[in-house]
């Protein structure tokens, strides 16, 4: 366990900001999974993703934090809210639990999985290796186009096919087409 810094030192204030980010993430996640209306659920998802971006910032990756805001908050959450407006009629926008047993059973499953992972993480001695570079944005760009260029091309094809497939699926069955 690392030594705890004083509250009013720089490290202590950074720790306070970190705790706030963690709280934002977990509270947003709980809102996203428990709210009655789907629109509030998406709002909780956005709050959760902003917190996750803050956690990425604490993990020395400002670029990934920015991408998290851009892609998730800017694109995915907006797409989900469009789908809610297109698909959910006004009186049926409420969402509840699936059945009388699903609440306790779901909570039990989730607690088992999360607790299992947490205990596993805390009890394992992870091997730490020396860093060979600093993980800067420039190095990310270089590695994306050299070492990982194959995956880079593949992911663009996957995205293209996903966009085309989404258009085809959503267009099928329209009355005026």
């Amino acid at each position, binding site marked *: 366990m690392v030594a705890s810094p004083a509250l009013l030192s720089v490290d202590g204030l950074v720790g306070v900001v970190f705790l706030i980010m*963690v709280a934002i993430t977990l509270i947003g996640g709980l809102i996203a999974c428990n709210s009655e209306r789907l629109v509030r659920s998406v709002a909780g998802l956005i709050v959760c993703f902003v917190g*996750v971006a803050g956690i990425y910032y604490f993990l020395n990756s400002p*670029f990934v934090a920015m991408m998290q805001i851009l892609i998730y908050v800017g694109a995915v959450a907006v797409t989900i809210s469009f789908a809610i407006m297109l698909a959910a009629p006004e009186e049926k926008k409420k969402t509840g639990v699936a059945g009388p047993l699903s609440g306790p059973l779901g909570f039990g499953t989730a607690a088992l999985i999360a607790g299992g992972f947490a205990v596993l993480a805390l009890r394992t001695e992870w091997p730490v290796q020396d860093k060979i570079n600093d993980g800067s944005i420039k190095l990310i760009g270089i590695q994306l186009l050299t070492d990982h260029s194959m995956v880079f091309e593949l992911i663009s094809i996957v995205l293209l096919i996903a966009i085309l497939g989404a258009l085809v699926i959503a267009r099928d069955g329209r009355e005026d087409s």
Partner: protein
Amino acid sequence: MMLGLYNNLNTFLVIGALLFGIGIYGIVTRKTLIGMLIAAELILAGSSINFMAFNRFTAPDPVTGQIFTLFIMAVAAAEAAIGLSIIIAVYRHFKSIDAEDAVQLQG
């Protein structure tokens, strides 16, 4: 005593596990397909936090984990697009986004 937590690998692993658990809870309990999709995004965020934590604390090359997380984001965006278009198609057909209403294959 909690202020030094951000310099510790275990903190991030526990946060990832908690987000994963919240997502599992949402997938099991939600009735509508869009609610399940939102919970699936939470699961992906939890696993991304795990990748980034190992990338920051244990991996020798701190670029690889960031690139992996970027790819997870791209796949999640594709998954959201496809999933939402399927949900809209299901809504046109059944006039509902409840998972229990799409029962055409039920005997």
